[in-house]
């Protein structure tokens, strides 16, 4: 028996302060009218730091600081000079990658292997990529001299805290906007470390402002009159509220919301790699991925083999300490999310689907949920329709390509989809018909800063990443 000895990444690389203020106008300041809250480590429930909660007054201060920076420094600055700052930030992120990765895993609960090999490298890549655009905006196909919008109010989720920050801040700054960003209340710490990186990079004060807090803070931000552009990633419910509050104003809005992606496996698929893709699609980041492949559609003729291989592979998943370098599946981000996952899986069982998890020992403290699949799921089951946002896969079957398309599209969402087949022509045929913003072929959950990302239907509108991602921050 090959028992891997514990291989924990050292926490000493992270220098956490006991408490953090709000990052407004280039400095950490005490909140004027808000309180504070604690950010905890979901793997141990230990409090990591005390974080300020921004009230409406603080949000107003932040927006004013951003507006001043926009009018006086960042807006007039030539693109090539903005690029210098972005390149500098990207390099500092690379230099401090280990520190950022450890902090991300501590605060979010995701395995260090993912924060180290996926999140942080992508964060740096986004800043590098958009730094390159800053002095070439006239060549982006959006007109000869596209202008920035002003102050962008950005609200991001807890599943990829720093990566979502990069998706928001990098294109906004490259195009000449200034930002006020609110990280999620359960994962504010890497955003605050990013604020320190802005200071280290000598970014002009007010160009980036970070206001921490919960839903009320986010609401104050998106409803603030000084905000010209709202960008939100998160749940469809909150996205709807934001759309309502922005309606009738001149604010521009992009929303990246939920998903219930179909991962479609045909009978000629490369089975071993398809199984890897299924696992990566739903158990990556504990399934806390808006584009997660949470519905597996398997062609009936290979159902038994694929299921057997999937179960064998799931038994290999290593669930536990997020800081252990060999961990595959970490902790659920919060007690509330764990509760939601539990509720929906209980509904799944009650509705008659068969539940299976590999034998796995979960730690006593913290928020944990074993990787789970449901078989015998039909389209009417809630676990086939609602976004669970956890390590829970619903397995359905299909008989023909047309049926696969029909079932895959039969959801209010439309963020992503996966196709597994050796036949190139079928990939193209399917991709034409799937109503999803991203269609992966023989892979899943692959991200790149050059590639636009966004949804159809209730998964939101607007695109982030690539040349398309510039448009959301420019007056064109």
């Amino acid at each position, binding site marked *: 028996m090959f028992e*891997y000895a514990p291989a924990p990444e050292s926490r000493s690389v992270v220098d956490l302060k006991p408490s953090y203020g709000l990052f407004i106008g280039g400095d950490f300041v005490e909140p004027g009218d808000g309180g504070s809250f604690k950010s905890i480590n979901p793997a141990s429930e230990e409090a990591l730091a005390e974080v300020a909660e921004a009230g409406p007054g603080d949000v107003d201060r932040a927006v004013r600081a951003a507006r001043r920076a926009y009018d006086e420094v960042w807006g007039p600055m030539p693109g090539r000079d903005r690029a210098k700052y972005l390149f500098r930030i990207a390099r500092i992120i690379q230099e401090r990658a280990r520190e950022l990765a450890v902090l991300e895993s501590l605060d979010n609960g995701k395995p260090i292997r993912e924060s180290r090999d996926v999140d942080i490298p992508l964060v740096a890549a986004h800043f590098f990529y958009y730094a390159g655009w800053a002095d070439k905006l006239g060549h982006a196909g959006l007109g000869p001299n596209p202008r920035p919008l002003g102050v962008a109010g950005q609200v991001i989720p807890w599943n990829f805290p720093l990566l979502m920050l990069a998706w928001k801040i990098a294109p906004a700054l490259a195009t000449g906007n200034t930002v006020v960003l609110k990280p999620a209340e359960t994962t504010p710490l890497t955003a605050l470390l990013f604020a320190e990186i802005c200071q280290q990079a000598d970014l002009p004060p007010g160009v980036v402002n970070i206001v921490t807090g919960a839903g009320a803070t986010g609401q104050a931000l998106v409803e603030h009159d000084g905000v010209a552009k709202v960008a939100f990633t998160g749940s469809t419910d909150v996205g709807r509220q934001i759309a309502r509050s922005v309606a009738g104003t001149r604010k521009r809005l992009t929303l990246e919301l939920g998903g219930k992606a179909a991962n479609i496996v045909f009978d000629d698929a490369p089975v071993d790699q398809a199984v890897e893709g299924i696992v990566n699609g739903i158990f990556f980041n504990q399934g806390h991925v808006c584009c997660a492949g949470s519905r597996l559609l398997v062609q009936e003729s290979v159902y038994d083999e694929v299921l057997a291989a999937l179960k064998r592979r799931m038994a290999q998943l290593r669930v536990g300490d997020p800081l252990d370098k060999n961990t595959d599946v970490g902790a659920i981000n919060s007690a509330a999310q764990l509760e939601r996952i539990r509720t929906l899986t209980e509904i799944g069982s009650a509705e008659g689907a068969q539940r299976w998890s590999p034998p796995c020992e979960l730690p006593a403290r913290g928020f944990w949920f074993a990787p789970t699949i449901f078989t015998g799921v039909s389209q009417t089951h809630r676990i086939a329709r609602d976004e669970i946002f956890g390590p829970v896969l619903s397995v359905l079957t299909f008989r023909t390509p047309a049926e696969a398309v029909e079932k895959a599209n039969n959801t209010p969402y439309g963020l992503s989809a996966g196709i597994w087949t*050796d036949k190139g022509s079928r990939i193209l045929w399917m991709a034409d018909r799937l109503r999803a913003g991203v269609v992966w072929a023989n892979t899943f959950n692959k991200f790149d800063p050059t590639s636009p990302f966004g949804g159809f239907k209730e998964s939101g509108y607007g695109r982030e990443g690539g040349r398309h991602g510039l448009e959301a921050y420019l007056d064109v």
Partner: protein
Amino acid sequence: MTATTTSARSDLSEVGRSEATLRTFLHGLPGVDQVGAEQRAAMLGTRSIKTTAKAWAIDLAIRMVDLTTLEGADTPGKVRALAAKALRPDPADPSCPAVAALCVYPTMVPVAAAALWGAASGSGRPTADGSRMGLLGEPIDDGGPAIGRPPAGGATRVHLASVATAFPSGQAPLEIRLADTRAAVAGGADEIDMVISRGAFLSGRYQQVYDEIVAVKAACGDAHLKVILETGELATYDNVRRASWLAMLAGADFIKTSTGKVPVAATLPVTLVMLEAVRDFRAATGRQVGVKPAGGIKTTKDAVKYLVLVNETAGEDWLHPDWFRFGASSLLNDLLMQRTKLTTGVYSGPDYFTLD
């Protein structure tokens, strides 16, 4: 697996019946997505194996080494030196295990057999029941028959492997390749590493490759047959999977990646595909086949990556020298160096490890 796990066990014995059945079967195997396979192998390469796990892995890796010398310049002296190293890799540490096998050219087999089991003096020749191990200092029973077989069982039994069948190209008439095999077995080799006809495989003459493996297997008698696919020349992972199944269907006891004589030798993704093949083959037939990556594995770090690959692909049943081997020469000293570092806490210079 599409074609295998669903078919009954008796079906597979019929697969080698004709060119048509072989082709249908091999081309019905699920494909391998190159990007996905390489990504999986790379991900497993990031596993962090430390402290007790590392010590365990190093000892296992030493026990899995097929200590190899395959040079035109090989001499009896060189082979004897390597045999001594195989039996006792670290003379300073009796707790260090012996390697799995010594691997030589057929002409060197008698020398190697004598060096490993004492055939030259006649006094240390092992018996079939493993009651004697002359060079290891175990009790010697002078009554053993001189048949050149290694001791059966026993923790320190070192096998004698020989490459045969016109290694490394395999480009000789079948009769000559069979004679080569018989000579090696007669000389005392209990493991034969054969090469397949890559030319025949690549041109789609599967039946010819199959029949040749069957013939060599027959010539091996009781000796274990390792079939070298020379994956560097097969080029695609689909071919690697097909060749793996072809060799297993024809009776291979082991499938081996490479001769070490072409530019691309063992790689992690190729070994991954072969491990998937042996895993699926056992699920389909009940018969377990071993895997041997060979060539280019030089460091402990590499070896540990392969063991992780075995553990998380074929499973722990393959984590044994009977089912997984490393074809290597320079790997052993790096394993010994890391082993000493783990026990003493300091690195010794290369002069503290023997060059053989």
